[in-house]
């Protein structure tokens, strides 16, 4: 069997109009929410229709998407880095029929420009063993409520929302305008009968960022200093015999102000806005309301092109908390020593 063949060459799967104009594009326009036009030096144009997707797709849905692409796009489509579907239309006459077909099938078209595009999210209770919350559920609940921001471009700048179901932060929660992050609030409980066979004790001890875990070599297990534990769950990741999940106390924290682009200001990490909201499936109303509130206050106060983080830096964090009505608590004060703040986390610099 041949191995290590890598993914198929992407150039074999791009539309002929892109092949011909590859690296020779002149400009692009957003014709309307979800519809882009790229024009090449040759004068040829590519029309892109962006539609939302729930990320978790059945094979049947993928076949349906392929069918649409066959009918209107000569079989060409792509997925974006936020898991939206892009139908790549070479024939302008097929643009409107495609939009009608998508409307008929209830595919939301949007996610371009100053909108809220798809939510980058993770596995949650669908597949992972370390989550403190679900992913697909809160994402659906939230996108239902902020759907208008997906299909319009009315915000001051684009607002990136991401969700991670535990502190591993798979995805982009640490660098998003609004981030939804699952957290625990109780100390893990080592199962002394299982630790010796399931866990590498030195690895478990070393996994703790606060040094709260000590090896108990006599009993081949570990002990936890409850006063030092801040419930990150890292030890459970390396040692399955110390579960941390707690349905009554697990929940969601909200973070704001991150960005990755270098436009106007340097990239930023998201910062804590709300330390805890309960898990309240299936609609997570507290989380949805909190995020909507932040979006609305931001949209009312920010200047054009100003990202959430830039807006907060302009008005100051005190004003952010007073405008949004979010209480500022002792939980907001960073008590973890990290030097990264002193590093340049940006590509903005000058050659000598």
């Amino acid at each position, binding site marked *: 069997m041949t191995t290590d063949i890598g993914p198929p060459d992407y150039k074999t799967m791009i539309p002929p109009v892109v092949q011909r104009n590859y690296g020779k594009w002149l400009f692009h326009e957003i014709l309307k929410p979800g519809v882009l036009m790229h024009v090449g030096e040759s004068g040829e144009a590519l029309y892109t229709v962006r539609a939302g997707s729930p990320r978790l797709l059945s094979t049947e849905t993928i076949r349906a998407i392929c069918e649409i692409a066959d009918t209107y796009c000569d079989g060409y489509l792509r997925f974006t880095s936020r898991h939206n579907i892009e139908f790549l239309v070479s024939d302008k006459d097929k643009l409107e029929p495609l939009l009608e077909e998508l409307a008929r099938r209830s595919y939301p078209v949007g996610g371009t420009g100053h909108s809220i595009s798809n939510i980058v999210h993770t596995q949650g209770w669908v597949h992972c063993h370390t989550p403190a919350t679900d992913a697909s559920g809160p994402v659906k609940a939230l996108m239902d409520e902020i759907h208008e921001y997906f299909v319009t471009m009315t915000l001051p700048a684009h607002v990136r929302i991401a969700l991670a179901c535990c502190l591993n932060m798979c995805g982009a929660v640490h660098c998003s305008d609004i981030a939804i992050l699952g957290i625990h609030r109780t100390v893990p409980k080592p199962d002394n009968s299982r630790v010796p*066979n*399931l866990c*590498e004790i*030195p*690895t478990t001890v070393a996994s703790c960022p606060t040094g709260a875990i000590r090896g108990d070599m006599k009993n081949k297990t570990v002990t936890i200093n409850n006063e030092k534990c801040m419930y990150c769950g890292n030890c459970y*990741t*390396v*040692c*399955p015999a110390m579960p941390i999940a707690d349905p009554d106390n697990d929940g969601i924290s909200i973070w704001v102000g991150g960005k990755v682009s270098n436009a106007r200001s340097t990239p930023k990490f998201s910062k804590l806005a709300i330390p805890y909201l309960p898990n309240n499936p299936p609609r997570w109303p507290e989380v949805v309301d909190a995020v909507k509130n932040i979006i609305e206050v931001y949209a009312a106060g920010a200047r054009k092109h100003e990202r959430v983080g830039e807006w907060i830096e302009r008005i100051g964090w005190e004003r952010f908390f007073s405008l949004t009505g979010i209480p500022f608590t002792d939980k907001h004060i960073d008590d973890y020593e990290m030097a990264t703040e002193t590093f340049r986390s940006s590509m903005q610099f000058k050659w000598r």
Partner: protein
Amino acid sequence: MPTIELAGKTYEVDEDGFLEDLDKWNEEFAQAYASTEDIQGTLTEEHWKLIHYLRNYFQQFGIAPMIRKVCKDNGIDMKKLYELFPTGPAKGACKLAGLSKPTGCV
């Protein structure tokens, strides 16, 4: 709890086939398990050298050795490691050696 019968003996294992009670390991276990990890026939001297190295390291330090350490201490490279244990050092070699299942974001 799932069990597996190897060479006439029953062992308690997890869903991935790792020993539940590490003290139950013996050489027949390793040999009988080899075929499920894509190793043909009897284990060679090279296999045993690695298995005993892993066991000794685990007993001494309480952890499985890093891959670089395995290669350096045994004078082999990753390619050779995969020739010996086609399913890899973690899933293949550690399982046969009766070490705890690798954890983390694997």
